[in-house]
C-alpha cells in the first residue's frame, strides 16, 4: 500500500496531548487537521477531546479550539461561521468535533437544526461507542452486546446502535460520509470533500477506544480495519441525502474476528454473536441496495 496523503509531514497537532495510549479519537483529529490545514477553527463539546487538548493553559492543536457545552458543538460552529461571514472571512473552515455522546445523544438537536439550515460547517463525530471520558457509560452509539459500566456483563446492552449517518443523511445535506481511522487516506479525502461541500458536511468517524473497549492499545488500527472488513462499519458517502457510494469493498470477515479481540464482547455466546452477524449482513444488504439506487 502506498500512502497518498496520510504520510504528508505537515502536522497541525503537537505531541504531549492527554489521550490514553492508542487513542482513536486523538488520531482522528490528527488526520482531520492534516486534511483541513491551518485555516481551521475547531469547536469541541464535552467529550474526550476536552481532556486530550490539555489542561489550562496548555493546548495541543496548532489551530484555534473552542471548548463549549455538551449539546452545543454544532450550533457554536454555526455561530462562528456566521461571525466569519460578518467579518467577510471565507477561507476558514469551521469544524465541530464531537464524541458519540455529544452527537448521537446530547447534541443531536443542535446538529439537526444546523443541518436543516445547511450552514457551512463540517461536523465530525469521532465515535468510540460510549461515554468514555466519564467512565465508559453506555450511549446510543454503543452497539448490541457491548459491556459498559452501565450495561454490565450480565445485563449487556440489548438495543441496537443508533444509525446517525442515516439520520443526518435524511436532512439531505450535501455531504455525509463514514470514515475509519484504519483507512487514513480515505478519511483525509473525505474531509477534503467536506471542505468543498456547499453546506453542512457530516463525517462519522469510527475511532476505537482501547481503554473502554477492553483491548490492547496496539490493536487500535487493526480493530478499525476489522470493523470495516467485517461490514460492521462500512465506508460510504451519501451525496445530497440520496446518492449512496460505497468506497471500499469489505473483505467479508466474520464478525467473530472483530468481537473476539475486545473484552467488552467477551461474554457473548455463539447465539448472540450470530444475532450480530445477521444484523450486520442485513444492514450491509440494505446499504448495497441503496448504493445501487
Amino acid at each position, binding site marked *: *500500500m502506498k*500512502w497518498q496523503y*496520510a*504520510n504528508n*509531514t505537515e*502536522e497541525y*497537532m*503537537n*505531541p*504531549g*496531548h*492527554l*489521550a*490514553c*495510549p*492508542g*487513542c*482513536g479519537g*486523538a*488520531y482522528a483529529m*490528527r488526520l482531520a487537521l492534516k486534511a483541513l490545514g491551518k485555516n481551521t477553527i475547531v469547536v469541541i463539546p464535552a467529550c474526550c477531546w476536552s481532556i486530550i*487538548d*490539555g489542561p*489550562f*493553559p*496548555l*493546548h*495541543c492543536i*496548532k489551530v484555534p479550539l473552542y471548548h463549549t457545552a455538551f449539546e452545543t458543538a454544532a450550533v457554536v460552529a454555526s455561530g462562528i461561521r456566521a461571525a466569519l461571514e460578518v467579518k467577510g472571512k471565507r477561507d476558514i473552515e469551521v469544524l465541530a468535533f464531537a464524541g458519540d455522546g455529544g452527537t448521537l445523544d446530547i447534541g443531536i438537536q443542535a446538529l439537526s437544526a444546523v443541518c436543516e439550515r445547511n450552514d457551512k460547517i463540517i461536523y465530525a463525530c469521532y465515535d468510540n461507542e460510549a461515554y468514555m471520558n466519564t467512565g465508559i457509560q453506555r450511549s446510543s452509539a454503543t452497539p448490541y452486546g457491548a459491556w459498559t459500566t452501565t450495561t454490565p456483563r450480565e445485563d449487556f446492552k440489548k438495543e441496537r446502535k443508533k444509525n446517525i449517518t442515516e439520520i443526518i443523511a435524511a436532512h439531505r445535506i450535501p455531504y455525509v460520509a463514514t470514515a475509519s481511522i484504519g483507512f*487514513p487516506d480515505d478519511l483525509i479525502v473525505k474531509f477534503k470533500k467536506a471542505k468543498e461541500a456547499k453546506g453542512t458536511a457530516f463525517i462519522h468517524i469510527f475511532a476505537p477506544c*482501547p481503554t473502554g473497549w477492553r483491548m*490492547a*492499545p*496496539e*490493536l*487500535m*488500527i*487493526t480493530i478499525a*480495519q476489522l470493523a470495516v472488513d467485517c461490514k460492521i462499519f462500512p465506508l460510504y458517502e451519501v451525496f445530497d441525502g440520496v446518492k449512496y457510494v460505497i468506497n471500499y469493498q469489505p473483505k467479508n470477515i466474520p464478525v467473530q474476528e472483530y468481537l473476539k479481540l475486545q473484552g467488552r464482547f467477551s461474554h457473548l455466546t455463539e447465539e448472540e454473536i450470530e444475532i450480530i452477524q445477521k444484523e450486520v449482513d442485513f444492514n450491509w444488504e440494505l446499504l448495497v441496495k441503496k448504493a445501487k439506487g
Partner: protein
Amino acid sequence: MKKLDLKVKDYPELAISWETTLINKTGTWRTFYPKYFPKTPPCNYYCPANENIQKYIALSLKGEFEEAYFTILEKNPFPSITGRVCYHPCEIGCNRGNFDESIAIHAIERFLGDYGINFVESKRKIEKLTFDKKVAIIGSGPAGLSCAYYLLLKGVGVTIFEKESYPGGILFYGIPAYRLPKEIVKREVEKLTKRGAEFIFNKELGKDFSLDDLTKKYDAVFLAIGAQIEQELGVLNEDANGVLMGLDFLKAINLKRKIKYFGKNVLVIGGGNTAIDCARVALRKGAKVKILYRRTKEEMPAIREEVEEALKEGIEILFLTAPSKIIKDKKERVKGLECVKMKLSEEVDESGRRKPIPIKNSNFVIKCDTIIKAIGEKVDLAILPKEIIGKRTVLADEYGKTNIDKIFAGGDCVTGPKTVVEAIAYGRRAAYFILNYLKNFEIPKKESVSLVNYENLNTYYFEKQKRIEEDRLPVNKRKRNFKEIVATLTDQDVKYEAGRCFSCGVCNNCDNCYVFCPDLAVLKKNGEYEILYDYCKGCGVCAHECPRNVISMFFEEEK
C-alpha cells in the same frame, strides 16, 4: 512559559490557553517502548551462501541492478550459475509463500547475474595487485572457483589445477547445457582469469603431482576435488557392457566424447540430480528413458522442478523399485534389469527418511540395453594423505582447516555430495580463513540472527499478486538438442517480482509507523524515522502496524 506583555484589560473574557502541550512529557506514562530493530529475513537466513537477498531485491525494485549485482558478489561470485542451478532454499523459506506464492528469487538472481556479466563486468575496475602470496587450488569446481575469487580480490595469487581441459568442474561437465549453458560457465570463469588466476589443465592430483609438491611451492593449498566416484549398486553383473556411471556419462556428453555401449533403451537408477540429469540427457540423445527410484517422489533428493520437467518431457519414473540383478547376453551386453518392488518401512535411516525394504516375490524384469548408475557420489580418498581423511570425506572444520598445516579443504570433498551453492559458500569461508592464515585478514563475524516468521508480519497492507513465471522452451522443441530451457526475465518482470517482496525485517520506508502514531511521537526526516521518547506513550501501534516486523516493543526497564 511564554512571558506575555498583556494588561488585565487586554485579556478576553474567557480563558485562553497560550501554551502548547510540548512541556507535557507523556513518555513517562510508558511501560513498553518501541525500537527500530531490523531482523533477518528468512531468504537470507536459508541461503547457504548467506546472500543478502532482501537487499538485492530492494535494489532491483529501484532499478539499481548494478548495485544489486555487487550485493550478490559479496557472498557469491557466480550468480548467473546459482540463479540457474541452485535448489533455492530461500524460496522455500520465503514468507510470501504463506501468503500467496514465494518470490521467484532464483529468477531475480539469474537476471542480476546475467546483467552483471553482460553490462557490469566489462567496465568493472580491476585493481592491480602484486601477489606476494600464492595458493594452489586443486579442482576448479564451484568451491575452488569461489575460493579463488575471494583470494584474488584480497591480493593473493591462485593457481588452479584441473584434471580436465576446461575449468568449472561439475559446472562444466556435470550439469547439462540445457540447465547451465557452457557459455555462462566460461563467462563466470573470466572473472578469475581477468584478475590473474592461473589455470593448469590436464593435471591430476595423485598422478601428475602430489600434495607435498604443492605445499613446497605454495603458501597454502586448497583441496576442492569434489565427490566424483559413482557408488556401486552392489548387484550381480555390474561389470556388464552397457552399465555406465552417471557422472562419467554426463562428462562424456558435455565433452562431446563418444560413448561406447549407449543404446536406445536406457534405465537410470537413482533419485538425485545426477539421475535426473542423466535421464534427460539420454532422452535428448534419442533414447527411451526410465528412472528407477527405490523410494517415493516425496523422498527424491533431486530439485522438484527438475523432476517435474523430466516427467513433462516424457521420462517415466518407477518409484519404489530397486535393481536386484543385471541380465546380460552372451556378448556381455546388458539386456535387462531384474527389479524388485519396495515398500517404505517405519524404520528411519541416517538421512532421516523412511527406509525402503523389498517386497518378497515381487521381482520383475525390465528390458533395456543401457543402465546408468546414479545413486550418489563419493569422494576419492585413495589419493589423499591419511591424516586428513575420515571415513567417507576429508576432515575439515567449517572454515576448511585440516589436520595438516598449509592444507585447507572445502566443498563436496568435505561435506559429501551437496549442492553448488553450498560449495560456493564453503569456498568463500575457506578463502577468508586462508586470508586470515596468510595475511591476518579478519574473518567477518557471523551476524546474530533474529528470524522474521510469517506470524510476525502484518499482512493487511499486502495484496495478492501472481508470482512471475519464466518462459520455458516447449517440450516438443527440446528433442535432440541442448538448448537452454528456462529464459532470463526482462527488467520489467524483475521489477514486478521485486515489488512483491515483503522486505521482512528490513525497513523500506513504507511510512506506516509515521502515519499511524496517535501521539505524533514518530518523526519522519529525509526518509528516516525517529521515535520521540519524550512523548511516546508506548501504545505499540507502530510496532503492530509495521508490515515487516522492523519495530519491536521492549519492556521499559530493559532500556
